[in-house]
């Protein structure tokens, strides 16, 4: 039996420690991992818990991220609670296996500390890896700060392991900005944390020796379509209600309220910024300042990136006149991922908003309040004109000649 850890009500943790503590508290059965910056401390902290008797599961240090997720898949199929962490190139190396995990309907929690993908090599935060995972069939939850990284892990385990869901889940946090920034984090006791997620309930587990199961079969045109459709059906119908229920229960337990779409000052907003990660909190602060200047500014933070909360987002954005989608990833030959998602979300609605795309913060470049002021100023001009008065896609915080497209 692992020892419990006495935590203060508020601990000063960075995002990595917050994630590690959550993994310890839910008493993961198998963690298989390969360290990579900036997610390395998640694994190191966990190793420390193991070395000091706070964890009694298996901790497997594999030879690569691909091996780590392969091991996690085998462990999950065997029938127990499984988690790992990664970033960037490591995430990219895992991608093949991510599809296997979701295709086999295996609950696994992956903490992704978001980081740019090379070349050029870069260890700092952006959302390139998160976006790379968007078609992999995983649930994707996004943190804005260490507190979120801690809390969303509990949500992720609970939803992922639900027998109506049985899909793996990622918890994202911004590389260095969240992962290495210490803040006060409100904690749960070990007992309360474990009870919120509950003991793992196996389903089709390989270790039930009286009931052999076959995982990872071959299907061709005769069955593949049905399997993928069922997987998508579960993702689109079961997951959001389960997340909402988990958020509601979590609020009852902690008083901390989470929403599938985090709308700030959106009730009467004329202009809105839609973004993810740490930028949400910066944008929120600037929006408040813009309101003092008479601009009805709002912020929409994406909390659940997959499954995409189409209806919730459309409802939040229905009355705005101008929207900026902020993408922290190089679009590589198209418009930004969030821009695309929001375009698709609003197309069949009555919204008359104009939508523009800002690419920012690649490879850890700061997004400053001044940048957001200029974005809101653009949005105000678009709202007043009722049309796009600026380039459709532009970079913010980029040195050298101004680059813009469309």
């Amino acid at each position: 039996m692992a020892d419990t850890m006495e935590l203060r009500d508020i601990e000063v943790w960075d995002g990595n420690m917050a994630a590690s503590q959550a993994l310890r508290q839910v008493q993961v059965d198998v963690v298989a991992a390969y360290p990579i910056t900036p997610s390395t401390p998640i694994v190191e902290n966990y190793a420390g818990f193991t070395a000091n008797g706070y964890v009694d599961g298996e901790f497997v240090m594999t030879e690569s991220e691909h091996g780590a997720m392969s091991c996690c898949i085998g462990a999950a199929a065997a029938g127990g609670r499984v988690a790992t962490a990664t970033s960037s190139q490591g995430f990219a190396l895992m991608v093949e296996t991510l599809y296997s995990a979701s295709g086999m309907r295996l609950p696994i929690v992956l903490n992704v500390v978001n980081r740019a993908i090379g070349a050029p090599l870069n260890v700092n935060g952006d959302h390139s890896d998160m976006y790379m995972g968007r078609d992999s069939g995983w649930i994707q939850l996004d943190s804005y700060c260490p507190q979120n990284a801690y809390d969303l892990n509990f949500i992720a385990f609970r939803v992922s392991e639900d027998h109506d869901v049985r899909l793996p889940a990622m918890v994202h946090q911004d590389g260095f900005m969240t992962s290495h920034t210490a803040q006060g984090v409100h904690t749960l006791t070990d007992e309360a944390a474990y009870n919120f997620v509950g003991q793992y309930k196996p389903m089709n587990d390989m270790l039930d020796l009286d009931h052999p199961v076959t995982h990872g079969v071959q299907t061709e045109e005769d069955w593949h379509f049905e399997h993928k459709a069922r997987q998508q059906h579960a993702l689109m119908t079961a997951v959001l209600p389960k997340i909402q229920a988990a958020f509601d229960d979590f609020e009852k337990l902690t008083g901390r309220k989470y929403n599938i779409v985090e709308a700030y000052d959106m009730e009467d907003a004329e202009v809105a910024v839609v973004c993810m990660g740490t930028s949400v909190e910066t944008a929120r602060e600037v929006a408040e300042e813009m309101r003092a200047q008479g601009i009805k500014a709002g912020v929409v933070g994406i909390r659940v990136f997959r499954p995409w909360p189409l209806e919730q987002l459309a409802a939040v954005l229905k009355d705005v006149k101008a929207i900026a989608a902020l993408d922290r990833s190089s679009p590589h030959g198209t418009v930004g991922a969030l821009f695309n998602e929001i375009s698709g979300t609003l197309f069949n609605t009555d919204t008359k908003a104009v939508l523009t795309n800002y690419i920012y913060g690649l490879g850890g470049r700061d997004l400053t309040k001044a940048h957001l002021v200029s974005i809101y100023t653009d949005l105000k001009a678009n709202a007043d004109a009722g049309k796009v008065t600026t380039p459709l896609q532009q970079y913010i915080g980029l040195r050298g000649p101004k680059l813009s497209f469309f």
Partner: protein
Amino acid sequence: MSEIKKIKNLKEFSTSADRFEGANLLCPGCAHSIIVREVLNATNDDLILAASTGCLEVCTAVYPYTSWDASWIHIGFENGSSAVAGAEAMYKALKTKGRLKQPDRVPKFVAFGGDGATYDIGFQWISGCFERGHNMMYVCLDNEVYANTGGQRSSSTPIGASATTTPAGRVSYGEKKNKKDMMGIMAAHGAPYVAQVAPNKWKDMVAKIQKGFAAEGPVFINAMSACTTEWKFAPEDTIAISDLATDSLVFPLYEIINGTELNITYRPKNIIPVRDYLGAQGRFKHLFTKQYEYLIDEWQTRVDKEWERLQRREEARV
């Protein structure tokens, strides 16, 4: 420690367990199914199995059917080893936590992969599993070619064989490189047990599989798997071809214990010429021409030297 299964004769052995069904899509004459049955039938213990992408995998778990009456998982081409390692880690975790459903039963963990999955693409994963010391057996079904995808060379393909990506032609005798020494590499991991087996020598195979299951830690079994389709021989000749391979010493049967102690486990009474082995297969047909006949002599020299090396290592006990 579970009891070692007693095996009387081949007839009884071949029907002593049915955890791998005859109903599968493997080619008639494929040695894979013979080897798999020999491995699984060597024990009465519960089994947790994995397969890498390859002939065995695509032919035995085509939804909604399965040939496996034991828990089985496939993820990808390269990671059958890691899949079983993960399951083994979960077994250990649940044992520690007292949550095993049948705590008195100790399953064996086995991964199967072809030579492509083993010698090439999955090499890193296997190496990782062996270095970490998972309690598992990895069985390579070594048919010396990417048979599942239609006959491309792998790093197990022997020199002079004609494969689709190294075809014999007017100016080429086919594969140019010697087969990778996977046995030596796996033994160098310090694995407690590493052995080379062939389906025709079933008693030798059973003894080695049972030794492997009794060992604590990762076990590597390299099983010669004659491929009627890519080696180009008649389906009914699988065992005859296997006899030629072991009796010509092209595929010597031996084991390496704890990375050092080497034992030769089969010494043919009459060693037959390598020429006879090569001549029985279409993939070496072009060697029997004036242009390339010198390669047959080189083959014989290489096999003789390797046999000499194995015997010296056996004597040296190092």
